[in-house]
């Protein structure tokens, strides 16, 4: 304890006072760390809140069931329940169905309608009617005996303006019905699902509204006490082949597994800002060690042990990390509000529907962010602290020549850089670990480190290469700047490394996002082709589970004279924990107007084979996740049919999370069963003179006939919406990038200021021998130019390599999809000069610092 107190005293006297004396640079570094930590923390909190909301909803649904019976891709016949009435292993059973409905009138946001048997469900899920007493009993009885009665949560009732006893018209895919609100749900259990936007109805009412008479989504089972796994297996075997016995947490697990990949990617991306901030900590601690070498030698001469010096500088790093983390909390609290909305929207678009009503301040997430911030700062301070240990007490008397040591450092840094780049190349081809591209992430980290370590040599070489020509063009300021950069290459390299990292990330993500967008544009044009798309009402939100009524299907061709129709039916299936879609579509007509984005297989030979129902096409993601390739067989049970078909080819697809299998609708109907239509798209058979007018006529006719039962969207509108969703998805990435660049600019500003302050004597000498303030300013800008040119040049090279790694390794291993590699030269050409200008702008504080000390001080310095 006494030791600790004496260390703290030494630390306060030696380090804290020094930090306060140089408050500006300390604040800049703390701000850099704070920004990085704020991004990291808020991204993790935002994703955590989405996961928590999703898992909570899933847990409330799962209730206390031991197993769930489902029918892949379809609905269970209610009579299945009869199997469990007397089954020796089953104690209780219940049914559950869900769908999205909305208040009549259009434009209202859909909410989740849960259909249950109020009697059977009591032992499974927790839900309670608000108020209690006779009123609650009455409401519960109403739900049981009165058709079209509904329980709403209080917030939803307020939103819909429907209090207890009020009427409420709700519309679903094929019909609209008037309900009476019989009571309000207390805020617990099922009432908390989807942020409280739920209503509960009796299963009979549910079936009447949805038209799913005698069918339910699932049957939940509770087993008798002491039931053995063998008995459960026997029960599963007894079920008809088209039914499956699943764990109640299967949906939660598959959903969270998908979100976690997204979380990991965002976490790594958000860590980039913290990684850039790490360079700042290194930069400041290294500067303190270098600038205070003589003081360190004096401390050593006075009896301080090497490990004491090591601890002092490690503590400096820890303090910067701690202050940064504390400052990150208020910054993060602002940032997380924006991120929460953006992240939950992206998760809903790509993976599973989530609705986050409130931010959960997870202690574990805060602990992770604290540990990562502090750990990063300690790692950054480690090397300079180790350097401090090596200061000899002799240096108090005799200063060594720092120039020689710097040269050695630049060379050894370059050697280390080559090692990092070689290790990066070796790690990239390794497969993912448990579905996570760990080797890929490590390779990316090594790539950044490699380029950062190369920067001293690059700076030295650039300055040396321009030593003759540049001063002739730009005069003595350029000469002085080049020499200063050469001398301080190792120290400045740390900030240049930060800039390299930020520019590399920027370049790589610009390339990746552009490549992705270009590919999606082509995919949208080819695969999402069509002039008008029609689905059953609320088909999208209900994931196309409800087919278009037969009477409409039979009438549609009559209304659409002059159009080709491509019918389709989508089924949501699962393979292990991997959810995917099976889409049966009118291939022959589709190939007349559109095409897939082929990845494996010859399109010319495959198109007729696919159209003739010879086999299926699978998406790239499906192939990557299941390991199934052309030549393998696709097997799945869909609504009672066992589908077993050869895989003919692999195509790109970017719908939801991209796992999809395509097959001919006509041949599905012939070989298996009638899948019906969940959607249909219309193509002009021949381009009309006025396509807009023709389309308006068709829309008008369909709306007039079945406007209350169908959703319509124009082809151009749909394709625009897909691209808008894409852009929204990457909006978070852009925010993270801008912050990383801001932290890097902060690094350049700090480094230049520190370099200028360190050389105030030299700058005053230049003034004294005839240099003008303008020449001094020019010199500092030239120094900034050297740093920024190397930072941006190396960052660009690193960014191109990184983009390849992101597209071919990280993305493929995380999400299963790749895209056509295209470089957005115009964006890079426009933004890189802007970054250059911004980084040069970072020289301004250094310029101000240059004139902080009056030149006359020179005469007082001995």
């Amino acid at each position: 304890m006494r030791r600790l107190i004496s260390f703290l005293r030494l630390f306060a006297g030696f380090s804290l006072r020094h930090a306060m004396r140089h408050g500006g640079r300390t604040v800049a570094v703390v701000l850099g760390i704070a920004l990085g930590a704020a991004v990291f923390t808020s991204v993790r909190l935002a994703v955590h809140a989405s996961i928590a909301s999703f898992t909570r909803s899933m847990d409330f649904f799962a209730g206390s069931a031991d197993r769930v019976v489902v029918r892949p891709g379809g609905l269970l016949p209610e009579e299945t329940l009869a199997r469990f009435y007397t089954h020796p292993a089953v104690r209780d059973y219940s049914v559950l169905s869900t769908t999205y409905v909305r208040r009549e009138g259009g434009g209202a946001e859909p909410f989740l309608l849960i259909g249950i048997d109020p009697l059977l469900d009591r032992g499974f899920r927790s839900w309670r009617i608000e108020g209690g007493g006779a009123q609650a009993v009455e409401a519960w009885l109403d739900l049981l005996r009165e058709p079209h009665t509904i329980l709403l949560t209080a917030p939803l009732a307020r939103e819909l303006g429907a209090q207890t006893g009020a009427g409420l018209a709700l519309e679903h895919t094929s019909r609209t019905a008037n309900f009476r609100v019989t009571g309000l749900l207390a805020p617990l259990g099922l009432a908390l699902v989807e942020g409280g936007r739920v209503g509960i109805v009796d299963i009979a009412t549910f079936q009447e509204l949805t038209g799913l008479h005698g069918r339910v989504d699932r049957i939940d089972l509770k087993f008798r006490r002491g039931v053995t796994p063998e008995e459960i297996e026997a029960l599963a075997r007894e079920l008809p082949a088209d039914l499956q016995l699943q764990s109640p947490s299967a949906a939660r697990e598959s959903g969270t597994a998908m979100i976690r990949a997204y979380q990991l990617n965002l976490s790594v991306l958000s860590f980039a800002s913290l990684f850039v901030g790490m360079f700042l900590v290194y930069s400041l601690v290294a500067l303190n060690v270098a600038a205070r070498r003589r003081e360190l030698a004096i401390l050593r001469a006075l009896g301080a042990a090497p490990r004491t010096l090591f601890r002092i500088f490690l503590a400096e790093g820890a303090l910067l990390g701690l202050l940064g983390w504390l400052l990150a909390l208020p910054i993060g609290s602002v940032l997380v509000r924006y991120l929460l909305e953006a992240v939950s929207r992206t998760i809903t678009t790509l993976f599973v529907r989530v609705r986050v009503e409130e931010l959960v301040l997870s202690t574990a997430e805060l602990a992770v962010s604290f540990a990562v911030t502090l750990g990063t700062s300690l790692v950054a301070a480690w090397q300079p602290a180790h350097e401090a240990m090596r200061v000899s007490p002799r240096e108090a008397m005799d200063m060594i020549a720092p120039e020689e040591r710097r040269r050695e450092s630049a060379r050894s840094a370059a050697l280390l850089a080559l090692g990092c780049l070689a290790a990066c190349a070796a790690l990239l081809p390794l497969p993912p670990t448990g579905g996570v591209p760990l080797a890929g992430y490590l390779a990316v980290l090594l790539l950044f480190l490699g380029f950062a370590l190369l920067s001293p040599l690059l700076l030295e070489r650039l300055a040396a290469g321009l030593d003759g020509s540049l001063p002739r063009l730009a005069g003595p300021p350029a000469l002085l700047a080049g020499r200063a950069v050469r001398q301080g290459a190792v120290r400045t390299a740390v900030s240049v490394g930060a800039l390299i990292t930020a520019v590399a990330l920027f370049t790589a993500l610009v390339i990746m996002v552009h490549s992705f967008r270009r590919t999606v544009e082509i995919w949208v044009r080819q695969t999402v082709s069509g002039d008008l798309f029609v689905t059953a009402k609320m088909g999208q939100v209900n994931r196309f589970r409800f087919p278009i009524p037969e009477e409409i299907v039979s009438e549609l061709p009559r209304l659409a004279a002059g159009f080709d129709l491509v019918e389709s039916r989508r089924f949501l299936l699962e393979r292990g924990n991997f959810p995917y879609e099976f889409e049966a579509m009118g291939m022959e007509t589709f190939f007349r107007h559109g095409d897939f984005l082929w990845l494996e297989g010859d399109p010319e030979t495959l198109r007729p084979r696919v159209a003739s129902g010879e086999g299926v096409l699978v998406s790239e993601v499906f192939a990557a996740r299941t390991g199934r390739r052309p030549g393998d067989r696709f097997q799945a049970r869909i609504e009672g049919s066992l589908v077993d078909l050869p895989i003919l080819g692999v195509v790109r697809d970017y719908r939801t999370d991209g796992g999809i299998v395509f097959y001919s609708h006509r041949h599905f109907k012939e070989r298996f069963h009638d899948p019906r239509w969940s959607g249909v798209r219309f193509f002009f058979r021949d381009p009309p003179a006025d396509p807009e007018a023709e389309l308006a006529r068709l829309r008008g006719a369909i709306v007039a006939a079945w406007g209350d039962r169908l959703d319509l969207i124009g082809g151009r509108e749909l394709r625009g919406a897909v691209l808008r969703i894409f852009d929204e998805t990457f909006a978070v990435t852009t925010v993270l990038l801008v912050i990383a660049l801001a932290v890097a600019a902060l690094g350049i500003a700090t480094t230049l200021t520190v370099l200028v302050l360190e050389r105030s004597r030299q700058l005053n000498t230049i003034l004294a021998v005839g240099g003008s303030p303008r020449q001094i300013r020019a010199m500092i800008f030239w120094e900034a130019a050297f740093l920024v040119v190397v930072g941006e040049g190396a960052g660009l090279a690193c960014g191109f390599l990184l983009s390849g790694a992101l597209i071919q390794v990280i993305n493929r291993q995380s999400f299963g999809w790749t895209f056509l590699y295209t470089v957005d030269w115009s964006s890079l050409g426009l933004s890189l000069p802007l970054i250059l200008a911004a980084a040069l702008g970072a020289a301004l504080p250094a310029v101000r610092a240059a004139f902080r000390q009056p030149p006359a001080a020179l005469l007082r310095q001995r």
Partner: protein
Amino acid sequence: MTDAEAPLEPIVCARNLTRIYPLGSGTVTGVEGVNLDIARGEFVVLKGPSGSGKSTLLALLAGLDAPSAGELTVAGRRLSGRPPGDLTRFRREAVGMVFQSFNLLPTLNVLENVCLPALLAGRDEREARRRAEELLERLGLSGRARHPADRLSGGEMQRVAIARAVINGPALVLADEPTGNLDSKNGTAVIELLARLNREDGVTVLLATHSDLADGVATRTLSIRDGALVSPPCGA
């Protein structure tokens, strides 16, 4: 207060020269009420203990600092209240500075250090180089021209600094404790060098020092204490 007057054409003319620095809530007096004339071609030694105002006076004469009050004219240019651009031109053309700790730029070699004032003044590079080589030859440093400046001995560094001070042909050289970091042998050599420049090239020298090494070559010796000149107005 002592007034110093010189019989010849004055290169330095200070009247009631005062420099007061703010310090916290109070002030510190650097120099106060100095009246000084230095004639062209003089070798003036300014003596005084640490903190007496020697460096402040030199900084004012070099245009590195601005007086709080009084009038100052150096080499025919009035320095009080001049804009920074004028002061830069003044330093390029009229004065050369020599410092106790040499203040050579470690990133430049010897020749480049000597050339620097000429290049900063926008002189022709080839001409500057020729003049620098000539000066180095004269100072016995021609063999060291390409050496990094921070690899020289103290005496050599100060000789390079003197060459740098005179490359633009100033009328006045201001030397602030030029022997303070040197042993007596090297110190004597530096003083002799300054005396030679004074004698042969007619450069006026004002040398602030603690030591007696320059006593033999000075045309006049001034003393300063607590910011005011206290020695007789005319030396030697």
